[in-house]
Structure formats: structure tokens, C-alpha cells
């Protein structure tokens, strides 16, 4: 059916006032309001319904449109936030463009909040309908334009997140470009020794993933590559991928997934890092373990929350408690396997000979205590303890956040393995120093309220994951925001965790903030499925409530482009000179540009200055302009 889009015709307005049972009818004189509506300019039909949203109410709207040749429909009932789609669809079914429908809220904003003042509520309902009529007369039909989507994906980052996302898209049948900065796939995880909970080697765990990505016919892998430029909008990105020593690749892309990962914070100047030997970060320690190049150890100290939680970085890095616990267990269980010859490996860690200084009698006492805790009678035999239990592992922590099912079990396991947890507060940070030739941790014992010292052979610092230094560059190229700490910022922290506010670009993994591998994989799968929606649909509908440039007034100053939160406005040279251009597919219709344009050259469709002013004016005075 052809829609009645002839908005230039004189408006013929129909007003349907709803009783909503007694919800409105009980507190507002609905029939008198409907009678009043008939007196307003251009209103050719007005009636009241018991329930406008019920079948007979909707039929009344459709018949009203036909019988009275209505080209504007006003329903005065509940809130547009719940019922607008229903009435709009009804209008469309009768051939009326849905943007010619006006909703007047006389329930939530009137009858329900003025239940004891029927006269005033009735007067307010009249005023609100008058405002609706004033607005309806100026409404125009709008079209939602279809924009084609190129059915190719782009994933930036070849770590676990990026590979998972790329594979998901590729498995759905879409060609994917996977761009990795380094010469090999695997990202952060390829440096790690083993993964907690599974206790499997990190390399072995991600090997199948890497092989699948390399073999997949739908994945075009770009190693040693970075993004050179990204232009366009959802469905229509023109990207240039630069590869070292090769020619640039140009591609047309539908949707983009950002999975650029994170780095470990380097604790320069903290806890003797880079100052004393055998002070390493968690990841450096994992590398040592992986290469089997650990020095001889008897006393190991972990310091948690180094540089995080209000120190260099404000946030909690989420993963380090569990990584720390895992490594503590590794040391106790696997130490013999990872022991190696430092000199041969040539790593930064030097071996320092340290003699066990605890007197034998104290050691004996400790062993006896352990025996008792196990429920064994009398003295426990040393033979029952594994050789590595001679290693003392102490975790200096602020709080242990071993959340969830598996992590709590791992934590309990570490306690069973005699890993000691010593709490410190931000007021009394542990200190790492050399006492003569001896690496030492000084700390304040919170229970004893005493300063203590502990000679150690190695200090392992748990530092937070931090944003990639080049995230800012990429964020500018893609025109998506970074949060305060330099991580990519999702559209909504709860409801849209893998979307960017800008349509067509998605985010997953540690570039969004610290997360463990399980979480990265979950996010990657989610991002891929979000990114696949426009790809498989083949088109997107552009918002009809969008801004529109009057090129006669526009001077091309570009203020609208800087105000736009969605990068939906560009300034381009056209036949009339530099002018703002609105990318309809990217515009969300907030109107920030319209209210900010110095020349008033920007019109917000469906919420124009005139529409807002006449609506407001009709609320102040009994006039419909």
C-alpha cells in the first residue's frame, strides 16, 4: 500500500484518547479531553477508547485513518517507551508513515502522578494533547534508508581473542582479514609457561588455535602488519593494511573487531626491580619457568598488586591473584623440573648463592606442626614431604581475589601446599632491599603489629596488565573511545560489553581491560557474533531521526563533526566549498550537532527547532502556532 507521505497537504489530525481502563479514566475526565481535542486546529477526528492498545482500539485507529483520511495520528495514553512501536505499526498498516504518529503521555506523566487532583490532571491532559497537536502539524514523513554491508570482516590482533574472533567469523562463512603486529600468532599467551586450572602448557593449549587459523580458507592472515588507515562507516570501511617489506593491502570491510591485547606493566623503580638481581615480574618469571632456567631457590616472595589499585594504575588487574597462586603452586610442585643453569640461558636473572639461615630446630618444629595439621600423630617424617616443600613461598598481598569456583579451589590447594599468604596494607607496603649480599623483604606484620624481615632468593612482582601504547593511535583511526586508563571503552559496561558506541566496530579481550583467557575467548565469540549480524543481514537500516545539513547555511567550520560522539559527520569539499556531510548510517540522532551549530545549518529530523518550540509554546499558552 502506498504510504500517505503527502505531508505538504493540510494536516488532518486524528486524536485517540485512552481510558486505559480506570488507569487514566479514573483520574482524568477522558471524554471531556477528547471533546477538547476536537476544538484544536487541524483536528478532524477525536474519540476516546477504553483501551487504545487493544484490538478494537487499534481497529479504531485504522478505520479513523481510512474514513477521515487522516494524515497525522495522535494517541494520548501511556508512554512511548513501551507502546510507540505498536501504534506506529498500526499506522503503517493503514498506510501512514510511522513518523507522522505522535504519542502523548497522559498516564505515567499525568493520571498516575496526579491521582488526587482530577481537575488539574484533566487540564494537564488537555495541555499535553494541545502540545501534541502543535507538534503533529509540523511532522514530516521520514524514510529509513537501507545501506549495503560488505560481507567481509577485519580482526585487529592475533592473540587468543583475535584468533578466536577471526575463526568464529570464518566458520560462519565470512572472509576475514586478521592483522597481527608481530611475526607470529599467539599474543601475550605465547610467553606464558602453563595456564592455571588446566595446568597445561600455554604453548600446547593455543597450538590448535594457531594451526586452525593458519589453515582456514576464509582467513587472510597479515603477519608483521599494522593498520595504516580506516575510512568509512558500518558496512563500508575502506582499510589499508601495511605489512613490513610488502605492498599495502587494500580491502573493503563490513565490520571490524578490535583485539589488540595488553602489556604487562613494567615496575621501574618499584621494589628493587632492575636494581637488584632476582627481582622479576610475573611474566618474566613465567618465561624463566618455560625456558627451564630458574636459579636455585629456597625462599621465594610474591608481591601482589604492584603498581595497581591506586598506585601507578587505579584499577585491579583481575588476573594476577590467580596467576600468582598458580606460580606459587608451580614452585612447590614443579620446581625441580624448571631448575636450570642460568649461565647457559643468559637471562637477566643472576644466581645468587644463599644459605638457608633458619636454624634446624625451628625447621623441625615447622615440620612437626605441618604433620599435626594433617592429622598425623606425633612427628611427621621428612620422607613424607616432597623435596620441593623445603621451598618457602610467601605471597604478600592486599587481598586475595580468587573469585569463582575454580580459583577458590586453586587457592585452597596452594594453602594445602604450605604457600604462606601475608597481608599488607597500602599504608605499609613491603620493602625489597639488599642486606649485605642477601635479598631481603621487610614487611609489617599486620597481626603482630611488628616490623619483620625475610631473607629471600627471589622476588616476583605481580604487576597489572596495561593498555597498548599505540591504542591511542588506533582509537583515533577507528574513531572509537579509550577509557581513562587507555583501554578501549565499550558502548555500555553492562548491556553492550563487546560493542563500541559506533556501529560496526566491536571489541574483545585484554585491550578492553584485564581478563583471563576464558573471558577473552567468551568475549571474542560474543564480538564475532555481534559483528556477524550486519554481515549476514547484508544491509543496515539508517536511523531516520538523523541530522541534515543545509548546505546554503553551512560554512564548513567542522564544529558539528567535533561534537558528534559517533564520528557521523565529516567535512568535505563539494561544489559549494567545504561543507559538513552527515553519514546517515552512522548518525544516532542525539541532536548535539544541531544545538551546537554556529550557523544553525544543522537540522535534527523529527526533532527540529520549530517542532520543539511550538510544542513548548503550546504548553505555556493556549495557542497552537
Amino acid at each position, binding site marked *: 500500500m502506498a504510504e500517505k507521505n503527502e505531508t505538504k497537504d493540510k494536516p488532518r489530525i486524528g486524536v485517540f484518547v485512552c481510558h486505559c481502563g480506570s488507569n487514566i479514566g479514573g483520574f482524568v475526565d477522558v471524554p471531556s479531553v477528547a471533546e477538547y481535542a476536537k476544538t484544536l486546529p487541524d483536528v478532524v477526528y477525536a474519540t476516546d477508547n477504553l483501551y487504545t492498545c487493544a484490538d478494537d482500539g487499534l481497529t479504531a485507529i485504522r478505520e479513523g485513518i481510512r474514513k477521515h483520511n487522516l494524515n497525522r495520528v495522535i494517541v494520548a495514553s501511556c*508512554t*512511548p*517507551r513501551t507502546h510507540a512501536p505498536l501504534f506506529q505499526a498500526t499506522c503503517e498498516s493503514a498506510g501512514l508513515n510511522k513518523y507522522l504518529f505522535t504519542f502523548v*503521555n497522559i*498516564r*505515567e*506523566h*499525568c493520571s*498516575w*502522578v*496526579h*491521582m*488526587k*487532583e482530577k481537575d*488539574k*490532571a484533566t*487540564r*494537564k491532559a488537555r*495541555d*499535553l494533547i494541545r*502540545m501534541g497537536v502543535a507538534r503533529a502539524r509540523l511532522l514530516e514523513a521520514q524514510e529509513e534508508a537501507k545501506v549495503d554491508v560488505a560481507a567481509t570482516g577485519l580482526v585487529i590482533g592475533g592473540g587468543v581473542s583475535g584468533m578466536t574472533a577471526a575463526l568464529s567469523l570464518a566458520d560462519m562463512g565470512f572472509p576475514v582479514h586478521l592483522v597481527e603486529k608481530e611475526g607470529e600468532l599467539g599474543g601475550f599467551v605465547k610467553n606464558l609457561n602453563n595456564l592455571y586450572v588446566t595446568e597445561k602448557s600455554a604453548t600446547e593449549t593455543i597450538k590448535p588455535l594457531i594451526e586452525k587459523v593458519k589453515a582456514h580458507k576464509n582467513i587472510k592472515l597479515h603477519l608483521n602488519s599494522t593498520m595504516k588507515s580506516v575510512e568509512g562507516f558500518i558496512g563500508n570501511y575502506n582499510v589499508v593494511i601495511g605489512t613490513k617489506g610488502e605492498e599495502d593491502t587494500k580491502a573493503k570491510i563490513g565490520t571490524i573487531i578490535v583485539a589488540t591485547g595488553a602489556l604487562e606493566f613494567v615496575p621501574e623503580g618499584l621494589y628493587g626491580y632492575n636494581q637488584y638481581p632476582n627481582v622479576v615480574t610475573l611474566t618474566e618469571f613465567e618465561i624463566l619457568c618455560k625456558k627451564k632456567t630458574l636459579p636455585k631457590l629456597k625462599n621465594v616472595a610474591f608481591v601482589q598488586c604492584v603498581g595497581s589499585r591506586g598506585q601507578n594504575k587505579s584499577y585491579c588487574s583481575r588476573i594476577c591473584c590467580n596467576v600468582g597462586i598458580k606460580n606459587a603452586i608451580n614452585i612447590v610442585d614443579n620446581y625441580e623440573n624448571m631448575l636450570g643453569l642460568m649461565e647457559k640461558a643468559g637471562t637477566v636473572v643472576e644466581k645468587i648463592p644463599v644459605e638457608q639461615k633458619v636454624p634446624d630446630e625451628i625447621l623441625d618444629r615447622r615440620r612437626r606442626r605441618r604433620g599435626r595439621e594433617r592429622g598425623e600423630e606425633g612427628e611427621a617424617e621428612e620422607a613424607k614431604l616432597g623435596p620441593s616443600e623445603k621451598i618457602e613461598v610467601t605471597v604478600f598481598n592486599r587481598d586475595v581475589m580468587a573469585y569463582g569456583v575454580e580459583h577458590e579451589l586453586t587457592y585452597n590447594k596452594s594453602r594445602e601446599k604450605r604457600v604462606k599468604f601475608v597481608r599488607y596494607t597500602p599504608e605499609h607496603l613491603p620493602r625489597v632491599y639488599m642486606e649485605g649480599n642477601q635479598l631481603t623483604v621487610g614487611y609489617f606484620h599486620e597481626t603482630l603489629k611488628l616490623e619483620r624481615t625475610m631473607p629471600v632468593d627471589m622476588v616476583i612482582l605481580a604487576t597489572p596488565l596495561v593498555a597498548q601504547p599505540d591504542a591511542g593511535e588506533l582509537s583515533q583511526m577507528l574513531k572509537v*573511545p579509550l577509557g581513562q586508563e587507555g583501554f578501549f571503552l565499550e558502548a555500555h559496561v553492562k548491556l553492550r560489553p563487546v560493542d563500541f*558506541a559506533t556501529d560496526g566496530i566491536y571489541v574483545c579481550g585484554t585491550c578492553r581491560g584485564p581478563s583471563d583467557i576464558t573471558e577473552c575467548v567468551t568475549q571474542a565469540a560474543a564480538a564475532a557474533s555481534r559483528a556477524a549480524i550486519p554481515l549476514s543481514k547484508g544491509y543496515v537500516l539508517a536511523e531516520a*531521526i538523523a541530522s541534515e545539513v543545509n548546505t546554503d547555511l553551512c560554512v564548513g*567550520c567542522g*564544529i*558539528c563533526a*567535533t*561534537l558528534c*560522539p*559517533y564520528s557521523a559527520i565529516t567535512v568535505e569539499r563539494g561544489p559549494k566549498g567545504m561543507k559538513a556531510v552527515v553519514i546517515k548510517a552512522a548518525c*544516532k*540522532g*542525539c*541532536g*548535539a550537532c*544541531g*544545538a*551546537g*551549530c*554556529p*550557523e*544553525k545549518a544543522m537540522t*535534527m529530523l523529527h*526533532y527540529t*527547532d520549530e517542532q*520543539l*518550540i511550538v*510544542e*513548548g*509554546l503550546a*504548553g*505555556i*499558552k493556549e495557542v497552537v502556532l
Partner: protein
Amino acid sequence: MSFEPKLMGFLCNWCSYAGADLAGVSRYQYPPEIRIVKVMCSARVDPDIVLEMFIQGADGVFVGGCHIGDCHYIKGNYYAQQRMKVVKKLLAKCGLELERLRLEWVSASEGERFAKLMTEFTAQVSELGPSPVSGEQPDIKKLKLLFAAKNVVEDVRVRSLLGKYVEFYEKGNVFGRKMSEEELDGLLDSAMDDEFARVNILLAASNKPVSVKELATTLNLPAKRVLQHIVTLKDRDLMKVSRIEGATPFYQSAQSVRIGGE
């Protein structure tokens, strides 16, 4: 009959309008004077729309957005904050009480808060009494000033500064120099002062030629400033010398300045 203020509310679709809905769903009662206009975002509320409402006789205007950081459109409420700050400054210049304009953040879950705000705002404006420019006999002097204020927020220079505000503050100007809030407010204030004075000069010289001295007295400005403004207005072809008496030039607006229905 006791005074029933005319109150206009501009509420953003995603938070404050939804908060108002929740007030209804929860049956929180509040005074019925407010009339609500829905906008998609508080950033849509152009300062000149607010001033127009006052010119038309609103006793109070309420603008509601999402809480800072929760804007559905990321940062629209920051813009609204800047813009309403400007409107408040102008209201002060016009001699209207600042309490007549209220900008608040109401989330979709704050029905009770919305009702409370409405109760508060209605009581506050009721206490102030009718707006000086509303009713049968508006204060013409203040009405003229309001028209001048509306001209100020429609001025290209003021709007450009306002439009660039967040950018200058966050990213810096073309030379990459970031500006502090005080510095930017200072710039914006002086631009507004200038434009306000200029519009008032145009209004004063609209019907009859006036001398700099006369203008300085009427507008309570130093004669030197008045002359500077006249030079600017002459450059914009908005003012001309009408006649010279002895050594005193008399100036008149180039075209008669229309204010509203006058």
C-alpha cells in the same frame, strides 16, 4: 486562586523521560504544573529554545539528562551542562532568578527522585512568583534583555566558542594547547558580554540616533567600550552614522531591529 507556575520540562528519551515514567508506574505523586517535551538527548536543547520558553512566558524551565558518564549518546549531557551554564549567565544579566532554570540528571531508575525534583522545583518557582516577563503586563525592559540574550546565544562567535569548548578543554586548540575551564569560561563570558552589549546598543539605537555618551549612560558601560562595540557593529554593516552635531556623531542601527512582535 493561588499562583500556578507554568513549567516546561525538556527530558531526554533514555534517562529522565524514563525516570518520569517510573515515577508514574510507582505512583509517586507530584504537583501537576510541569509540561514535558521529549527530546532524544539533553544535548538537543539549544540555549535559544530555553530562552524562547522564557520569552513566551514560562515561569520555569527544567532540563533533564542522564547522569554524567551514563549518557546514551556518550557525552551529550556534558554539552547540555555547558549550554545551560551559558543560559544561566544570560538569565542573570536579564534580571531573572537563576532558580527558574534547572538542569538535573535523572536516571531511568530514579522515579522517586524525579517526583521529588518536580515537587521541589514547583515549590521553588511558586515561591519566586510569576516570571517578570510573563502575564498580561510583562516587564518590557527585562523582555528586551531576554531578546538580547536570545540574540547572544544565536551569535556565531558565542556558538563557535561553545561548540569548541569541550574540544579545547580535552584535546587543545589547533596548536595542541589545552585550555583550562577558567580560561575557557573567561573567553566565553567576555564574548557573551560583548555580544550582549552590542545587541543592546542596536536595540537602543533602533528607533532614534543616539550618541556614545547617551548609550554609555543607558547601558551603564564605559564610553570607550561603547565606541569599540559601535566600530565592530559598523564593520558588520549593522550600524551607521546618522548625523553629526558639533563634534558629536549620532549613531543609528542600519535596519530597525525587530524584537519578537514589537
